[in-house]
């Protein structure tokens, strides 16, 4: 028993070494603080997010995990009273630099939200919205993009015969995959997911989880989740947030089997949260 656990530990350490060797960092967050009005929501966050991996962010409600992921594509700025300091480097560039174009950032970094939020348009129009807005007019190209993106989101077979129907006619799980397809249509590098399955039933959830596994070949994924099993199942690295701080950030297997911090252990064993 003891030896088995030890050998597992060793293999994890080995995995960590090879991991560091081969992956590059897509996001580098340094000394990042954020306030809503006078309430500080994030404290001195320090975190590197690897490319082409799934990074999970877990923690109890109100711990700042959604705020953090929304800072990565600057969506958090839509809240009027928000203030920040520190820096977030995406692909080597500070996204809070005055001249940095937030629209460019958001075309490279897609986002999937907690509740499916398709536009009140047809399925087809939803998928081609991004390419159209960013200037692609050619109908043939758009059709090709729609097909490719829907296939990428594992939705094509279910909707190929009703592309012109309103997106609200789809089930919740299908709507969420449509939102992923909409995201893929502009070929981002990163996909941020903010509790993408919390509004879905278990079957739709497992479909999205499978999809995340496929997508990580081509995309870097950061996923906020309330569900620790989900984080353990699908992610390569996991960050545990508590009260706006990163308590622990490590390889997922390591964090769930041998957490360094007592608070992480308490959380993942269900003692609070």
């Amino acid at each position, binding site marked *: 028993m003891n030896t088995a656990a030890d050998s597992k530990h060793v293999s994890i350490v080995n995995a960590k070494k090879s991991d560091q060797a081969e992956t590059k960092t897509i996001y580098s967050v340094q000394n990042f603080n954020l306030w809503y009005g006078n309430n500080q929501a994030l404290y001195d966050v320090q975190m590197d997010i690897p490319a082409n991996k799934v990074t999970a962010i877990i923690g109890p409600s109100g711990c700042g995990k959604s705020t953090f992921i929304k800072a990565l594509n600057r969506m958090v700025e839509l809240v009027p009273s928000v203030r920040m300091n520190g820096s977030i480097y995406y692909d080597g560039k500070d996204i809070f630099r005055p001249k940095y174009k937030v629209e460019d950032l958001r075309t490279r970094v897609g986002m999937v*939200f907690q509740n499916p*939020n*398709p*536009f*009140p348009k047809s399925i087809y129009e939803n998928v081609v919205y991004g390419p159209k*807005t960013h200037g692609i007019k050619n109908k043939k190209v758009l059709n090709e993009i729609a097909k490719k993106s829907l296939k990428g989101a594992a939705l094509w077979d279910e909707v190929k015969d009703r592309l012109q129907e309103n997106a609200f006619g789809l089930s919740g799980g299908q709507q969420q995959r449509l939102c992923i397809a909409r995201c893929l249509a502009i070929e981002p590098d990163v996909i941020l997911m903010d509790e993408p399955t919390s509004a879905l039933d278990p079957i739709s959830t497992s479909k999205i989880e499978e999809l995340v596994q496929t997508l990580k070949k081509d995309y870097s994924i950061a996923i906020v989740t309330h569900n620790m099993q989900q984080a353990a199942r699908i992610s390569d690295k996991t960050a545990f947030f508590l009260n706006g701080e990163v308590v622990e950030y490590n390889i997922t297997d390591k964090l769930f089997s041998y957490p360094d911090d007592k608070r992480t252990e308490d959380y993942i064993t269900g003692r609070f949260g």
Partner: protein
Amino acid sequence: MVVNVRNMMKNKKSNEFLLRFLEKAAPAFFLLCAVISILTTIGIVLTLVVETITFFNRVPFMEFITGTKWWPFGKNASYGILPLISGTLLITVVAMMVAIPVGLASAIYLSEFASFRVRKVVKPILEVLAGIPTIVYGFFALTFVTPMLQVVISDLPIFNALSPGIVVGIMIIPMIASLSEDAMSSVPSTIREGAFAMGSTRLEVALKVVVPAALSGIIASFVLGVSRAIGETMIVSVAAGSTPKLTTDVTDSIQTMTGYIVQVTLGDASYGSTTYYSIYAVGMTLFVFTLLMNLLSQFISRRFKEDY
């Protein structure tokens, strides 16, 4: 002090008879109030229909709806309503050309760009604009807008369709702005976030996502605006003149259906004369127009409603 809640509650119940009576009588009273407005509507329609039938006993229906000359006075009276309709439509078209762009643009600004503080100041001001008596607008058209227009168009007569048309448009702006803003504000913010997260700018989100999503409410507000322009009375009576003319020239002096009714009720016709009955026929036409517009607006907002 010991408070006995049960006993205190019982005291209130002691007046049981009166309470039970109120419980029964109140809904009856409320029903009565609701019925009053329905009865009034029925009464108005009945009056219109009866008097209109009397009119059509004297003037053939076909002459009324196809005639191109409206001259209801003297021996050679002619009752062709087309000039009155053209006058009304002329005012409506000019009004909507002012009200739709300005109203929609204000709505987009208020819903998508204005800060909370600006919205809190601007919306009540818009609503004050909606509360100004139309007679005031009428004199505003006659004594302010017309002279201004005469600077640009030198041969513009004092009474013309352009100036009251513009002012009717100004009067309708708050209505279109307010209703369209309501429609756009009810588009859920998650949909906006979805568009922002795809790298859309604020303008793109407003024009490509929010406006299409709120289109049914926006169009319904336009149709209600048209209906309001068709029925507008005081502004056109004061500033458009009283010469019914089948024309498309906005600088002409014209008369609208409402303007004609005002002119006759001010005492130009004796009771029982054909001229007198003609106002009911014109009123009926007006009623049909606005009814159709209101039905159309209801149809649009129901048929194309998005349930988010």
